């Protein structure tokens, strides 16, 4: 096919196009066959996770000189979009590792810290995660109460983080704690004295990734593990939330894309009243509206991703992308289930799993209400107050 002009939005370069093909092949060959089983068990497939390291996907946004692929936010969106078509839960574990830890860590670490951590997290030998949310502070993130106090050369952390993806398997975590009231980022290894994780927290969807609490009880963290300046944590957090939200939005697009594909095929094959059910106007509405919503979300997410990077800030774009795309994944999964009737509700087809997974995108990485709050604040500053 001659290249359509719109393809430039989704595959800006030959590398992006090859990346998409590679991830799509990997997802169909290796990710899809294990997805239902890991959803049922509620476990992360660690050997498959390491395959992401073999393929070079764990350091997608890290410069080549430091062992990564040196690609941009559009590339990160491509990976999340293609993987989430088959296994959003596994994709969430990938996101927590490569976006929440690796990308964030890279931009606030020094050369010594990079040389200590990057080889292990880029290969997948170590699984990593990020701890921001606490039992008493989610949306109200500045209300966090985990503290870090200087102790000789090192630090002592106290507090609890919760709902932390990759908590059960993780070898190291990027953790935000307050030093005299100022948010500061640390990297904490599993074997730091006084650190432990809770039992696995069971959940509705995204079951192919795990979640636990991170518990710090007089936890001793070496002085060399502070990331950036003391008190600079909020800047790192806000910068990283942009790529986090955009890639979460891309997962919703992946779910919606797959659900459109499944329901269009099913509606042609399934007969009722001696005709394909796609002859019924009510079914046509699910197919057509579902497709249009998916396309709109896809265009918004890819367009926003073009303006996200370590040196550009785009909070308005990333909040808007996730605010719009998250309900689309959920809605289109619901349409697909409705088109399929009983079959959609049963585990023989992936739709019920995608439907359960989709809901998370309206909560994790910021609730839709949080995006509405942020957007109103930013737009008011931008437009109403000159």
């Amino acid at each position, binding site marked *: 096919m001659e290249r359509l002009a719109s393809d430039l939005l989704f595959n800006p370069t*030959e590398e992006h196009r090859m*990346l998409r093909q*590679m991830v799509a092949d990997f997802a169909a060959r290796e990710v899809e066959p294990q997805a239902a089983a890991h959803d049922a068990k509620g476990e992360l497939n660690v050997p498959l996770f390491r395959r992401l390291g073999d393929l070079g996907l764990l350091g997608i946004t890290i410069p080549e000189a430091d062992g990564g692929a040196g690609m941009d936010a559009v590339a990160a969106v491509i990976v999340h979009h293609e993987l989430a078509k088959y296994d959003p839960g596994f994709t969430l574990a990938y996101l927590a590792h490569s976006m929440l830890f690796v990308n964030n860590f890279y931009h606030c670490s020094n050369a010594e810290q990079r040389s200590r951590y990057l080889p292990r997290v880029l290969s997948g030998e170590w699984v990593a995660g990020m701890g921001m949310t606490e039992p008493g502070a989610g949306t109200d993130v500045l209300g966090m109460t985990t503290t870090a106090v200087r102790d000789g050369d090192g630090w002592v952390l106290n507090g609890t983080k919760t709902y932390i993806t990759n908590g059960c398997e993780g070898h190291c975590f990027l953790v935000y704690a307050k030093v005299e009231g100022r948010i500061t980022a640390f990297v904490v290894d599993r074997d730091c004295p006084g650190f432990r994780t809770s039992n696995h927290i069971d959940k509705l969807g995204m079951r192919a990734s795990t979640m636990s609490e991170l518990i710090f009880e007089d936890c001793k963290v070496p002085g060399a593990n502070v990331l950036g300046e003391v008190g600079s944590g909020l800047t790192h957090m806000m910068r990283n939330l942009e790529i986090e939200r955009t890639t979460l939005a891309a997962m919703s697009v992946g779910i919606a894309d797959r659900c459109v594909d499944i329901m269009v095929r099913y509606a042609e094959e399934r007969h009722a009243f001696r005709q394909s059910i796609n002859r019924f106007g009510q079914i046509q509405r699910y197919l057509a509206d579902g497709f249009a919503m998916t396309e709109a979300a896809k265009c918004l997410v890819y367009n926003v991703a073009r303006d996200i990077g370590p040196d550009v800030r785009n909070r308005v774009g990333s909040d808007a992308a996730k605010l719009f795309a998250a309900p689309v994944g959920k809605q289109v999964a619901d349409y697909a289930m409705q088109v399929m009737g009983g079959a959609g509700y049963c585990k023989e087809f992936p739709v019920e799993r995608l439907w359960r997974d989709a809901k998370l995108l309206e909560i994790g990485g910021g609730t839709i209400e949080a995006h509405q709050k942020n957007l109103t604040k930013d737009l008011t500053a931008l437009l109403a107050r000159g």
Partner: protein
Amino acid sequence: MKILVCVKRIPDPDESLKFAGGGLDYSASKWVPNAFDEYAIETALRLAEVVGGTQRLAEVIVLGIGPESQRQQLTQFLAMGADRGIIVDADPDKLDTATVSKLIAAVFKKEAADLLIAGKLSQDNEGGQVPQRVAGLLDVPQASFAATVEWDQAAKALTVGREVDDGVEVKRVPLPAVVSVDLRIVLPKSVKNGSTPATHAYQEGPRLASLKGITMAKRKPVAVLKPSDLGVAVGTNEQVVGVAAPPARKAGQKVKTVEELFEKLTKEAKVI
């Protein structure tokens, strides 16, 4: 050792065919590498690399014949791990099998290659002639439809297992040579190079390009040649007279009983 591997772009065989104006309409086709060529590059890479080490035992060169601008499939093979590429810039519609074979043979000679690995056929027209013709033009030994390959580095020879109708034929071919590969060549233990541990099991199928391979691919050298550089005159003795869809099947008959079926099979269809 130099291994030459051919790649052909074909319309995705998983897509349904469209007919227009007495021929096939490819205007909306997605183009993919011929799957047997993917098996060929996988074979070449398994021969060239030493699993667990960094040493390379062979240089792998990918050859594509077609317009210079349509090099996506060649780039994909570079991303999988080939060392460099050669494009013979020509319009594939104006080349017949004999000319394509001459071009490949000319590149093989120009490069002084030791081994050509090609797919056993291309999935679009299923000609299945090119590797055999190239071997003939070069006057070198050939083993077609290889299911296993073992490289004896010291003896400069390959032992090739070929699946034939009555079993597996084992051939020993001294290099330089031509090998065409079949599907089973990408099973986990089909290719042995004498340096990678013989117990090593590859993942089945052609490998995925790693992200590192993808970002490196653009930096690998690709030479563009014209058929005239190779002393080959472009032309074709093949002519497509027409392409048409097979006639649609007539609707079948529904029968109520086994007796009725038996009756129809004996009296109407006369097959029993």
